[in-house]
C-alpha cells in the first residue's frame, strides 16, 4: 500500500494566496491531486485551473523546458555550460564577483531577486547578500516591471504601497471601481469576489479598452482609449468637486493639499466634456461613474497593470487614491484601494526590501537610524545611497560611457529578463555585454543562454517558505515532495556564496531567517511562524508577538494614514500622453496582457500538461474583426507583428471585444514573444516600462504552410536549446 498523505500549502501562482490541499503518494514522491483548502481565507475551498493543475511541472514532463539538476559554469564566454560540483561553482562565482568588486567597486554588481517560488526568507537573504556581502543597494525585482508604480504612488498618497483592503472584503463592497484590471484572467479567485459582490447587489464601474469579463457584468462600462487614464481620473474628480459629491468632513480631518488640488482640478478644461475627444468616453457616462463612486462609503477601487504599466503609472495611482480621499473611501471595512499584485510573492519581495531604496519592512536606506540598525545586526557598514532599478540595467551597460559606472555583474534569482523585460533585442545585447551573469533558477530559460554560472534551486513544492499574498497576508508554504537531483534551496545557495566571499552566513532552517527579519522589521515583528499556522496567515502590520495581535485586516483604520503626518495627501499631476503613438508605418496600438492558464514567463505552466493543452505556442494577437478584414487575415491564421524594435509571429484572433485600431498579446509565448516589440519607455518615478502601449503593424503571411512549419521548427529549436533531448514526442 502506498503511503498517502495530505499537505496544506499555498498556491505558487498569482497574488491571491489560495490555500491548496495536496494528496501525495510518499513512496512514489508524487502529487496525486490538488483541492482547494476549505480554510483558505481568500479562496474558501475553490481553486482556478492553475491551482488545480499547475503543479504538474514538479513531475518535469519536459514540454517547454526542463529542470536544472546540477550546478553549471561557463569557463569562458561562448563556451558551453559545464556541469560541476557545488564547491567549484560557488568558488568560481565568488572569485568572479570579488574580482569585479575589486576592480569597479560594489555598485558594478546588480541583483534581481525572485518574487516567485523561493519566498520571503530567500528574499530577505537576497537583499542581505547584496547589501552586506557585495556592499551595494543595487537590488531589485520584478515589481519594478509590474506594480512598482503602486508601491511608489500609494507611498506618496497614503504612506503604504499595498492593498488597503482584503480580498474577502471585495465581496461586501457596494461599488467596485475596476480600472485597468482584468481579474478574471489575472486572479480568478479575486474575480470570484467581484462576481459574488455583483450577486449581492454591488454596482460595478469597469474602465478598460477591452470588453473584459468584468466589463461584461458591469453597470457602467467606460471603454477608454488606451493611455488616457489620467484624463478620466481627473475628470471624475472634477465631477465630484463641481457637483459637490465630496466628504467634506473626511477631507478636513484626514487630508492635506486639498485646496491646491481643487484649484487645478475644478478648471473647466478637466470636465468630462472637455476630454471626451481624447478619452473616447461619453461625458454623461463619466459623470454617472463619478456619482456612483461617490454614492457609497464602501467603494473599493481595484487596479492592475492597466494603471501601472504606463510611463505615467505612479501619477495615475495617486489619481486613483485621490478619488478615495475625496469621497471618504479609506480606513474602514470594505473600502479603499486594491492594487492587486500579480505574482504569488511580489508583495513579499517588496516587504523584504528587495528594492533599491528600502530595507525590509519598508525602512528607508537613506534613514540613518534604520541603516545603523541593520549595520549593527549584520556587522558591516552599509551604503547610504539607493541603488538602481533593474530597468536601468540596459542603459548602465550599453550607454554608460564611464566603465567604472557600468554594471559588470548581474546576479539573477528566479527571473528571466530575456523573456519578461521590454524590448528583448536590447535586453539580449545587454546580457551579452555584461562581464558576469549568475543565474539561480529551477528551469532552463532564455536568460541561461547568457549565464556564466547556473545554480539549480528547489522549486515551490520542494521547500518551506512564507509567501505574502496581495492583501498583505503572510502564509506558510510547505514542502510537498522531496526535490530530485543536486538542487538546493535558494537561501542555502546564498549562504554558501556569502561564506565563500568572506561573510560567514549560516541558518539551520527558514524559521531562523524569518525570525532575524521579523525582529529587524517592526511592521512584521508579530508575524511568527506559530501565529501564521494558528490564524491561517497573518496580515501585516503586526507589531506584537502577543497572541492577541492577529495583524491588520484593512489599513489606515479611522483614516489614520501611514504617512509621516498621518494624513492622506492630494497631488495633482497633469496628463502626459503615451510615449509611442500609432503612425502610418505602425498604425495599430499594442498592449501586453495575460493568459489565464499561463503564468509569467511560462517556465512553470508551460511544463504542465493540461495548461499547455488549453493554450500553446505561438499564442495569439487579439484584433478587431474590422482590422482583420482590412488585412485579409482570418481566425487562426499566422501573422507577423512588427514594431520599431523587432518582430514576432503569432496567430490572429478576431474578437469584437477589442476596439478597432488596438491589438493585444500575452507575454508568455516564447515563439510569439511580444516583448520583441514592446517599448522600454519608463515611468520617471517608478521606472516601470510602458508595456501597455506601443505602435505596431500586423502583416499577412501568404505562405501559411511554411509559416506553420516555421513555428513548429522554432518550438522544437527552443526545446533543444533548453536541453530537452529527443524532440517533440508524437
Amino acid at each position, binding site marked *: 500500500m502506498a503511503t498517502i498523505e495530505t499537505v496544506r500549502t499555498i498556491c505558487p501562482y498569482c497574488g491571491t494566496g489560495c490555500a491548496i490541499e495536496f494528496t501525495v503518494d510518499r513512496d512514489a514522491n508524487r502529487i496525486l491531486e490538488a483541492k482547494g483548502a476549505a480554510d483558505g481565507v481568500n479562496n474558501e475551498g475553490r481553486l482556478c*485551473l492553475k491551482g488545480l*493543475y499547475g503543479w504538474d511541472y514538479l513531475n518535469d514532463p519536459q514540454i517547454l523546458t526542463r529542470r536544472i539538476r546540477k550546478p553549471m559554469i561557463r569557463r569562458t564566454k561562448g563556451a558551453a555550460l559545464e556541469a560541476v560540483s557545488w564547491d567549484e561553482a560557488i568558488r568560481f562565482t565568488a572569485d568572479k564577483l570579488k574580482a569585479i568588486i575589486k576592480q569597479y567597486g560594489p555598485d558594478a554588481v546588480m541583483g534581481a531577486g525572485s518574487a516567485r517560488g523561493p519566498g520571503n526568507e530567500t528574499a530577505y537573504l537576497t537583499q542581505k547578500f547584496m547589501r552586506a556581502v557585495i556592499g551595494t543597494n543595487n537590488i531589485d525585482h520584478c515589481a519594478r516591471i509590474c506594480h512598482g508604480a503602486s508601491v511608489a504612488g500609494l507611498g506618496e498618497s497614503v504612506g503604504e504601497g499595498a492593498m488597503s483592503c482584503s480580498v474577502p472584503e471585495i465581496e461586501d463592497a457596494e461599488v467596485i471601481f475596476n480600472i485597468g484590471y482584468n481579474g478574471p484572467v489575472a486572479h480568478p479567485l479575486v474575480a470570484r469576489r467581484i462576481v*459574488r459582490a455583483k450577486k449581492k447587489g454591488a454596482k460595478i464601474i469597469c474602465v478598460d479598452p477591452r470588453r473584459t469579463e468584468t466589463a461584461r457584468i458591469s453597470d457602467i462600462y467606460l471603454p477608454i482609449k488606451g493611455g488616457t487614464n489620467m484624463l478620466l481620473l481627473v475628470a471624475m474628480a472634477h465631477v465630484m468637486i463641481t457637483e459637490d459629491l465630496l466628504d467634506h468632513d473626511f477631507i478636513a480631518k484626514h487630508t492635506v493639499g486639498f485646496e491646491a488640488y481643487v484649484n487645478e482640478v475644478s478648471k473647466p478644461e478637466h470636465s468630462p466634456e472637455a476630454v471626451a475627444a481624447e478619452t473616447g468616453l461619453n461625458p454623461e457616462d463619466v459623470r454617472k461613474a463619478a456619482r456612483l463612486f461617490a454614492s457609497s462609503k464602501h467603494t473599493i477601487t481595484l487596479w492592475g497593470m492597466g494603471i501601472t504599466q504606463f510611463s505615467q503609472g505612479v501619477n495615475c495611482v495617486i489619481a486613483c487614491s485621490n478619488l478615495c480621499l475625496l469621497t471618504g473611501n479609506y480606513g474602514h471595512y470594505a473600502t479603499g484601494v486594491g492594487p492587486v499584485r500579480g505574482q504569488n510573492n511580489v508583495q513579499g519581495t517588496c516587504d523584504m526590501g528587495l528594492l533599491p531604496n528600502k530595507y525590509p519592512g519598508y525602512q528607508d536606506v537613506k534613514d540613518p537610524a534604520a541603516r545603523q540598525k541593520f549595520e549593527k545586526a549584520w556587522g558591516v557598514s552599509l551604503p547610504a545611497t539607493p541603488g538602481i532599478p533593474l530597468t536601468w540595467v540596459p542603459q548602465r551597460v550599453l550607454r554608460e560611457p564611464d566603465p567604472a559606472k557600468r554594471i559588470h555583474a548581474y546576479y539573477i534569482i528566479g527571473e528571466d529578463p530575456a523573456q519578461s523585460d521590454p524590448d528583448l533585442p536590447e535586453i539580449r545585447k545587454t546580457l551579452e555585454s555584461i562581464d558576469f551573469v549568475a543565474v539561480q533558477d529551477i528551469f532552463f530559460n532564455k536568460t541561461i543562454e547568457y549565464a556564466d554560472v547556473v545554480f539549480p534551486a528547489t522549486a515551490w513544492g520542494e521547500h518551506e517558505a512564507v509567501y505574502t499574498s496581495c492583501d498583505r497576508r503572510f502564509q506558510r508554504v510547505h514542502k510537498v515532495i522531496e526535490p530530485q537531483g543536486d538542487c538546493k534551496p535558494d537561501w542555502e545557495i546564498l549562504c554558501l556564496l556569502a561564506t565563500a566571499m568572506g561573510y560567514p552566513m549560516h541558518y539551520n532552517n527558514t524559521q531562523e531567517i524569518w525570525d532575524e527579519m521579523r525582529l529587524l522589521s517592526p511592521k512584521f515583528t508579530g508575524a511568527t511562524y506559530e501565529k501564521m499556522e494558528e490564524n491561517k496567515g497573518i496580515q501585516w502590520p503586526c507589531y506584537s508577538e502577543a497572541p492577541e495581535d492577529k495583524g491588520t485586516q484593512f489599513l489606515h483604520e479611522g483614516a489614520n494614514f501611514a504617512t509621516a503626518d498621518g494624513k492622506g495627501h492630494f497631488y495633482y499631476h497633469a496628463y502626459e500622453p503615451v510615449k509611442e503613438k500609432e503612425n502610418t508605418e505602425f498604425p495599430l496600438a499594442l498592449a501586453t496582457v495575460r493568459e489565464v492558464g499561463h503564468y509569467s514567463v511560462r517556465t512553470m505552466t508551460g511544463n504542465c500538461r493540461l495548461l499547455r493543452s488549453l493554450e500553446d505556442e505561438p499564442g495569439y494577437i487579439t484584433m478587431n474583426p474590422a482590422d482583420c478584414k482590412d488585412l485579409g487575415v482570418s481566425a487562426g491564421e499566422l501573422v507577423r507583428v512588427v514594431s520599431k524594435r523587432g518582430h514576432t509571429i503569432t496567430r490572429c484572433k478576431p474578437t469584437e471585444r477589442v476596439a478597432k485600431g488596438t491589438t493585444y498579446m500575452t507575454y508568455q509565448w516564447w515563439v510569439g514573444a511580444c516583448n520583441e516589440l514592446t517599448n522600454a519607455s519608463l515611468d520617471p518615478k517608478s521606472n516601470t516600462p510602458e508595456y501597455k502601449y506601443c505602435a505596431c503593424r500586423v502583416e499577412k503571411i501568404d505562405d501559411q504552410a511554411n509559416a506553420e512549419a516555421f513555428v513548429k521548427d522554432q518550438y522544437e529549436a527552443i526545446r533543444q536549446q533548453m536541453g530537452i533531448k529527443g524532440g517533440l514526442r508524437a
Partner: protein
Amino acid sequence: MNKSIKADPQLCIGCRTCMIACVVNHTGKRIFEIDPNGYDFNPRVHIQKTKTMTKPIQCHHCPKPFCMAACPFDVITLGKESVNLDEDRCTGCGFCAKACPFGAITMAEIYHVTDTVKAQAIPAPDIAKAWELEKEQEELNKHPEPVGFFHNLFGDGRRKRQQATTPKPASPCAEKPIPLTKGKFSIRTIAYKCDLCAHTETGQPACVPACPTGALSIIDPAAIAAKAKAAAAAKAKAKATQKG
C-alpha cells in the same frame, strides 16, 4: 426526468477550468504520469464567448433530444436520467452535432486510448445510407417549423425528424476491441458530449466542484421536485398549525 449541468452566466468568468476538469476526469489521474503528448484534449464542455456573453456550453440532456433523432445508428439513447451517447459505437458521422440546437456536441479525433473511450475497430459507415439521410435532413431544414424554437425542440419538429430518420440502419460497429498503437494518426472521429461524468473514476460531474466561482450546478429534477414537495408540505403544516 433528466439531470443536467446549468451555468450561471453572471458568475462565469470564462477561465475554462471546467474544460480541463472534464478532460482530467475522463482520462483518469494517470494523465499526470503519462507521456505529455499521450492523451487527447477533448473537453465535453466549451466556453463560448461573444461580444457580450460568456458561458459554458454543454449537453442539456433534453427530454426529447434532437441528436437522438438525428443519429442514424441508434448510438444516442435516453437513459434513466440522461441522454447517453455510446462512444464505442459512434461512427463519427456528425449528424448529432448538426442537429443539436445548443452546439453542445463536438466532433473530435481520437489519437489515444482513454479510460472511457475504448478502442474499437470501426468500419466505415454506410456512406450511401448516410448521404441519403443527410439529404432528408436538409430537406427538413428547408421547411422550418412555423412556431418558435421551443416548439421545435420539444414539439412536433422532433417527431417529424424521427420519422424521417427511421428505419435506422444497424450500427456497423465491430464487437471485438483491437489493440491500438499510439501515434500521430487518428484512430477515429467521434462525437463528444457531456455524459455527466457517468463513465469516469469519480462518477460525479467534475466541472461543478472545479469551477472557481461556483458558476456551475447540477440540475436534478427529481431532487427539485422532492424539495418543492417538502416545502409545500411544510407550508401546509404551518397553515394548519396557524389555523389550529
